[in-house]
């Protein structure tokens, strides 16, 4: 058994990620209403739906095309900042996977790094600014590190999921500088960032999708 993910694995990852979002969507909206406009959970529900559909029946076998379609489909959610950035993330992964029906851990790392680079082109937000970047940057970093030290894909996502969770939790004590929340300054301290919480849920789902697959 080669340690790689193909369309079937991606579908399970997306399905589990969607499941996490559906379970937590009210909490996500609640977080967004502290400093934002309270719609983040609703937006993420639509994102989850499209992500799931993107790896469903009648979608490309080529993972590059699949990810590009997934990204543009997520961008197509009328949701504001989060769907645009998450869509950019998936679409950004595409080039690293064009022509491939499966990706090994090194390829997965390259794809997630490319996704992060695409997002970084769209936002100046850095870790520490209390945005989804606080979860996304360490999560992608963890995958790269895992790939470099020869870990399996599942192990890579296990470390990525806990890095994303830790990053999201760390936003609790930060002050927002990007997005709608930026105008509130100090008032934003005390509760975690909604987008970062979503990213942690997505990576938790990715890992669960793979872990389930391996065990199942």
């Amino acid at each position, binding site marked *: 058994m080669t340690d790689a993910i193909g369309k079937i694995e991606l579908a399970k990852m997306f399905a589990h990620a969607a499941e996490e979002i559906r379970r937590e969507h009210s909490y996500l909206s609640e977080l967004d209403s502290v400093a934002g406009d309270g719609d983040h959970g609703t937006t993420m529900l639509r994102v989850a739906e499209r992500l799931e559909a993107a790896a469903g029946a009648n979608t490309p076998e080529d993972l590059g095309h699949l990810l590009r379609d997934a990204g543009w489909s997520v961008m197509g*959610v009328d949701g504001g900042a989060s769907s645009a950035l998450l869509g950019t993330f998936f679409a950004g992964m595409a080039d690293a996977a064009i022509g491939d029906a499966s990706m090994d851990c090194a390829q997965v790392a390259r794809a997630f790094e490319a996704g992060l680079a695409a997002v970084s082109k769209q936002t100046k937000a850095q870790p520490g600014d209390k945005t989804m970047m606080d979860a996304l940057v360490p999560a992608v970093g963890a995958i790269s590190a895992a790939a470099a030290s020869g870990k399996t894909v599942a192990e890579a996502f296990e470390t990525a999921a806990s890095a994303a969770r830790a990053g999201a939790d760390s936003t609790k004590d930060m002050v927002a500088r990007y997005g709608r929340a930026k105008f509130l300054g100090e008032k934003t301290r005390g509760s975690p960032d909604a987008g970062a919480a979503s990213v942690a849920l997505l990576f938790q789902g990715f890992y669960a999708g793979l872990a389930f697959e391996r065990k199942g």
Partner: protein
Amino acid sequence: MRMKKFINDPKHLVPELLEGLALAFPNKIRLLGSNIVARAVPKAAGKVRLVTLGGSGHEPGLSGFVGEGMLDMSVVGEIFAAPGAPRCMEAIRTAAKGDEGVLLVVLNHSGDVLSGNIAMEAAKREGINIQRVLTQDGMSGDPAVKDRRGLVGFLPVYKIAGAAAEQGASLDECCQIAERMEQNTRTLAVAVRTATHPSTGQAIFELGEDEMEIGMGQHGEAGTGRMKLKTADETAEIMLNMLLADLGVTAGEELLVLVNGAGATTLMELLILFRSAARILEAKKIKLVRSAVGEFITTQEQAGFQMMIARMDPESIRLWDAPADSPYFVVR
């Protein structure tokens, strides 16, 4: 406060209101698939196209300004939510059909900016000649915040760049005119009572029964100036002084002043506030050369208003006065 709105299924708010708009103004606008509003009769070939994008629930903004001498296309998002990049891309492609340049006017809200940028990059990869102007007129009241919100300051940009495009200006010229207008515009919003979100029925924000808040965003995002209610004269003076200081306006300069109702604040009040502003300017020997008072961008039935000032010159006055024929802004 229970939601008392004349709507049907809240899921269909946007397509229904757009259908209403298209049925009410069939000789001015028409709908393209997927919630894009376009001019009924496209501009003559070879002229720069103006495209904008933004959420709904702010009617008549933004699609009410599609028409001769103003916008060519408006990409309409959900209630208070930016439209996604794919639909923005679709509009840009359609607008750029005849190889004319496209000026994308984006109000500075994260979601809109992201969708606009992603679409613009994709358009450029397809070889479309496109430039963007970001409107960021909205002061939050906190001088430390440098990144401003896009409030009603989009209106002079649409009007003036739209008139220039109609008169045959190049994309570079239109973009420069728009940028210059944008940089010379400042807006402050004040709210006194919240509205209900038409999809959720929830209040958008909270405000005490004797309070008002200066420096708010278009969706009730908090400002920094929560204070006790004041009279029209006092409110206008506080706001106008902040605006004049921020734009650095001095005696003898020429201004456009616009007072925009948030939804439930009456035109009676807007006119009284405009009078206060005009009198303060007169006392400061600043010239009031053009004005607009009405509802241009609302936030449902929120009570409050935006006061906008823009520094004018003979060129921008000429373009402001040029004919326009959109559903909710007509100049004869």
